[in-house]
């Protein structure tokens, strides 16, 4: 009890749950993909959308930049769905003693 309240311990002595390492990587991937989506959308919109409005080129009845932004969004929708189905992994949510092999990570 006393030990648990301790604020003097070496973090390297604590075994990190492998599921949390997975969760951490997936969080980085999620934020990374979202930032990429933002950057690509903004670059496409603000380059194709430059210049006077009456000289816009139109694709399928839409200004090219708007069409581009929609295409980018749909493209990323496919990526997001792919990631959720084939990259994200399933883990057990409860702490069953049988699950998850022991990994002792000294670097983390």
């Amino acid at each position, binding site marked *: 009890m006393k030990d648990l*309240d301790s604020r003097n311990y070496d973090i390297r002595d604590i075994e990190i749950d492998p599921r949390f390492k997975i969760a*951490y990587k997936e*969080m980085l991937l999620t934020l990374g993909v979202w930032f990429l989506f933002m950057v690509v959308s903004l670059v496409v919109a603000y380059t194709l959308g430059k210049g006077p409005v009456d000289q*816009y080129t139109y694709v399928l009845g839409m200004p090219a930049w708007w069409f581009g932004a929609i295409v980018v969004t749909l493209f990323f929708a496919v990526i997001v769905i792919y990631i959720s189905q084939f990259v*994200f992994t399933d883990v057990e949510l409860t702490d069953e003693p049988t699950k998850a092999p022991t990994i002792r990570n000294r670097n983390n």
Partner: protein
Amino acid sequence: MEVPAQLRMIIFGTFLLYTAILLGIGVYSQRSMQKVALANYVDEFYTAGRGMGALVVALMIAAGLCSAGTFLGGPGLGYAVGLAWALAGFSQVFMNFCVLGGVGKKIGIVARRIKAQSYLDILIHRYERNPIVGLLGVLSMVVFMGAYVTSQFVGGARLFESMTGFPYWLGLVLFSVVVLIYAAFGGMKGVSLAVIVQGLVMTIAVLVLFFAAMGRLMPLESAIRKIGQLDPKLISPWTWKPQYEFSMWVVFGLVTISLPHGVLPTLTYKNTKAMRSAIVLGTVFVVLWTLMLIWMGNLTRALIPNLKVPDHAIPSLAMTVLPPWLTGVVLAGVAGAIQSTVGAMILVISATIVRDAYLAFINPKATAQQLKSVTQITTIAICAIIFLAALNPPKALEWVIVFAIGGLASSYFFPMLLGLYWWRANEYGAIAGMVGGLVTYMLIKGKILPALAFGMDPIVTSLVVSGLLVVVVSLLTPQPSKRVVLTYFGKGVPEEM
């Protein structure tokens, strides 16, 4: 809006039918909650026993985060500001991915370890049950979310008034009483059943409206050129400087991770397979809703160039291009968007009061029976207060709304994200980050130090300040206790938490 009397009656009739269905759900979920064993009551009430499947989780996030903003305010800005705003709307299309991929798995495991019933539980346990974290959390959650819920009801009831001609109070009653019934008596079960109906109605409304409007607007190119002739700004992204557009993306896309009503479903999902499917389903729903609705707000300009109230873009468009009974479905869709957000928020507020105020400060040794009664009484009382506030909106309301979502986001984003993924974050850092983010936001938004915004929405600066404070203050103060690190990062709960 000028609405012919006959049309009004048909819209009203369709809306009543929708309300009756929700009422049925309310009664059903109330009955099913009565059968729940006393010991499990609070667990069932707030998190549906952590057994929710993919569709419900997807819709809870999607419809919970898509409020009146997606149906009224967003298209209204598409109408008034133009496609630059609509582009910012795209930032929210992956909200399910951001919430579930960003924090879903971690919260799913931790919530089961600490038996969390509320968003704030996660923070409070992570930060050593520090009373200041608790108090700050409870206060900001209750004030900001309470005000936000009230404003959503006010918006919905005003729309009802202008579409049906019936008085405001009747609109408020119809909009709110059903939610109160299924949320206060059915808890998460009621909210999650209702959200399926609401999500369905929202999707039907959006699809029908989009294709009917497109049919009327063809050929599209000349319609858009016509809007460009009204005002070139309406169809150019350069209406907003790129850095402002960027900040809007942060506001509507990134910070969804830290909005309590959006994160709520991560406490309830059944297993990670359901979570992954919820990302797929949610992406499809939100892409459809957002893309179509916000763009249509802009396209409405081509058909109705001179709306007095831009927020009425979607309802006005519906009345122009749809047969009357389908216009009623669109009103029901708007109601669904509002009610689903409100339902989730009421649960968040109630859980916060019961778990993080009553159980933490007032009566830590409450019995199961006491907890059940307190849960019910609190939820009903919240609903009653919100109803009364919406009936006669107080002046302070608008002031609080200005700060509500931005304030919540700028105070919770980093304490939550870093708390979950950086073991070294501690309660001192969290308090500094929460206060610092909120204060910065208020200083800029309240026009006391507007220069700090650097041409962007105040949320960006506030987030940077908050994040830096969490990191720096945490590093300067002792590391978190072993108990917390074991629970949030280690291989198991050390003991009964």
